[in-house]
């Protein structure tokens, strides 16, 4: 019935298009938060998403993928996270409007007194925990845990998927060397999240939802959370099939799908394609273009930004904290940059030294 629609979606789905589309929606959302959280736009979006799911459910393959016990939480997660992001933004926009007019914020209207954690907050949390426990019991009765046969080291299931909360990491492994995607970047994520309160120590504008006053921070956070984590989890869950090939949402998971994935390293592009000479033997000569690119990437933006766009930030944070902030941001942005380099130029590694298991 909706065949042509489904074919169209499958035809345009690829890691590039989906990633770009999501980024575009994200940019729209953070640029026009007031318009996009208004009643009709919100309801319209909700309707479109539900319609997409409704149409999708008429497709056998789509139905199977979204109703696998492993994947049901991810469907829920999309809606729940979407809702909370919308909710926070809606409140923030409302407060921004009030602050502009010099009115008290919504939270200040409620009460200006301090409220004790115990018993007020704890009590609410306790009730929620009870409800949550009950829900989990029912859930576990309804959807069976997907247990498989005993592990066998010589047989990897196809596709082999990490638990859902690690699918973002698994997706990153497609673009980065294991020690970067599996060790370095997760460490950066954790350290970065821990560092937030030390980098941003400004107590102004805390205690209520707001957007305008903390725009840069909120955008940076939401980008990392939604695009670089949740989106990758969604792609890993629903769109990665056998052999970790990419499949459209309505495309049947064919084990024999062939997708050419031939990649080249930066050194090969520079020495073979541009200079027309062979690859140098020594790795330090062979890889200097990659090292140069990396050096420029981490040296120039901090210096330039400190004098231009982030001048005020630089003043406020002082050199050390400023550097930490910029380096963290650069590492975060490096992920989509590398993904686009792969899609656009089939670039595998900037620096590739298999002799030492060192690739970037």
């Amino acid at each position, binding site marked *: 019935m909706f065949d042509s629609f489904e074919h169209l979606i499958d035809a345009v789905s690829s890691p590039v298009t989906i990633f770009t589309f999501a980024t575009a929606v994200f940019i729209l959302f953070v640029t026009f938060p007031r318009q996009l959280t208004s009643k009709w736009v919100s309801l319209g979006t909700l309707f479109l998403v539900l319609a997409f799911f409704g149409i999708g459910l008429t497709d056998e393959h789509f139905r199977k993928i979204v109703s696998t016990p492993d994947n049901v939480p991810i469907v829920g997660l999309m809606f729940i996270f979407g809702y909370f992001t919308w909710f926070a933004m809606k409140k923030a926009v409302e407060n921004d409007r009030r602050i502009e007019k010099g009115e008290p914020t919504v939270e200040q209207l409620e009460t200006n007194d301090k409220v004790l954690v115990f018993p007020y907050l704890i009590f609410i949390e306790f009730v929620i925990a009870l409800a949550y426990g009950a829900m989990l019991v029912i859930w576990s009765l309804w959807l069976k845990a997907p247990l498989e046969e005993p592990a066998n*080291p*010589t047989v990897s299931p196809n*596709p*082999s998927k990490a638990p859902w909360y690690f699918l973002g990491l*698994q997706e990153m492994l*497609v673009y980065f060397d294991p020690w970067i995607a599996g060790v370095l970047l997760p460490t950066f994520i954790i350290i970065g999240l821990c560092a937030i309160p030390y980098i941003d120590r400004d107590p102004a504008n805390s205690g209520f939802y707001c957007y305008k006053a903390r725009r840069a921070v909120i955008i940076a956070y939401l980008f990392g959370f939604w695009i670089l984590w949740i989106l990758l989890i969604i792609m890993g869950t629903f769109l990665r099939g056998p052999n*970790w090939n990419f499949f459209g949402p309505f495309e049947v998971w064919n084990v024999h799908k062939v997708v050419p994935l*031939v*990649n080249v390293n930066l050194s090969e592009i520079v020495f073979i394609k541009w200079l027309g000479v062979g690859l140098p033997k020594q790795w330090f000569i062979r890889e200097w273009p990659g090292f140069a690119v990396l050096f420029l990437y981490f040296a120039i933006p901090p210096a330039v930004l400190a004098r231009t766009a982030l001048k005020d930030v630089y003043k406020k944070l002082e050199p050390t904290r400023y550097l930490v902030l910029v380096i963290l941001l650069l590492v975060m942005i490096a992920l989509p940059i590398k993904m686009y380099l792969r899609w656009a130029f089939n670039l595998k*590694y900037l620096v590739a030294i298999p002799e030492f298991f060192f690739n970037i």
Partner: protein
Amino acid sequence: MNRRKFLSWFGLAWVSFGAATGGALSIVLRFLFPNVVFEPPTSFKAGLPDDYEVGGVDERWKEKFGVWMVRTAEGIYALSTICTHLGCTPNWLTNENKFKCPCHGSGFYKTGINFEGPAPRPLERYRIGLTEDGQILIDKSKKFQQEKGEWNNPESFLVC
């Protein structure tokens, strides 16, 4: 209690505390090493060279020893079934004529050379030789890595 006596009690307490902690830790460490390990022998006899078809990838030892036997016109080599990316077991796809890893999509030619996906280096080869009775002997304790130029080593390849 005078000062010296106090100090000596104090020292005793620290020593016993240290001993107890050390003891507990050493037990924990011991726990990390299994009592029995079931490791398949590292070398095995893989039958006669003629058991293998020229041009084919043979999977009969994959399950038990983690080895693919590949026979070309020149001879036989034993490829490791461990993906050089993160160690999943790739599948041999006969139609596509390549090894393909289900975890992050690395692909390897029949030779073991990586050509697609994130795997940083080719699959490893094991030492291969003949026993006196003419059978193939695979020794998994010795590996040959292409990127180190070790595939030129005569032990990595059985001419037949």
